[in-house]
């Protein structure tokens, strides 16, 4: 197995710095403001989340934008309104990569989830409510 130092060419993350302010934000508005302008709703963003999550610790999500719906997408962020830090993840999308992301996130309690997409420097979003039976940040 290759050593990870060799596996991580400097350029992989050199170009994109971590959005620390957005990750540190403790309210949805604050996190959105740290990402840029207020996003506009856009029907071209397909955002799949469960209507009801029995276990908030593992909530599957999918963000997909068809080629042509929004041009030149460079970034996709996933936010969970009711979490202590709403920004869960931010994905940088190079040219040639489809806008298709699946992952699983923690959702503290019932509320909206947001997929925010940066297209030609402008922010667009889709939101979905997920009801949580058992919270994802407890312990």
């Amino acid at each position, binding site marked *: 197995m290759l050593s990870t130092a060799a*596996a991580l060419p400097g350029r992989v993350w050199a170009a994109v710095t971590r959005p620390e302010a957005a990750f540190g934000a403790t309210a949805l508005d604050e996190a959105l403001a740290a990402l840029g302008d207020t996003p506009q709703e856009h029907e071209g963003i397909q955002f799949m989340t469960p209507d009801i999550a029995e276990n908030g610790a593992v909530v599957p999500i999918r963000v997909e934008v068809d080629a042509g719906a929004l041009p030149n997408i460079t970034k996709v962020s996933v936010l969970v309104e009711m979490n202590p830090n709403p920004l869960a993840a931010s994905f940088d999308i190079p040219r040639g990569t489809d806008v298709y992301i*699946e*992952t699983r996130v923690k959702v503290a309690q019932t509320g909206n989830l947001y997929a925010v997409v940066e297209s030609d420097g402008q922010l667009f979003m889709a939101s979905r409510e997920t009801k949580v039976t058992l919270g994802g940040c407890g312990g």
Partner: protein
Amino acid sequence: MAGRIKIRAEKKGELIEVKALMRHPMETGMRKDQAGEPIPAHFITEVAVLHGDQAVMQAHWGAAVSANPFLGVRFQGGEAGDVVRVVWTDNQGGTGEGETTIR
């Protein structure tokens, strides 16, 4: 500590579909153990999917990504037999990687 990653890459038409499952506790730093002591934050902060030397996706994660994270992405321009790798680093300096060939 280098965490292993289960990874699969499949060619479907023009697309390469990558699915990766990482082993990681993804601790938020807000939980307490049985003795009431806070469990330190321990989560993956950066993840990249590489096709050869080219990053086809890179992400910054917070502690709200679920434990033992799953990641699915799709990209174009890959061929059967090409190497696809997933690498991560966490907030405590830990790293993980996995690789597979496209089938």
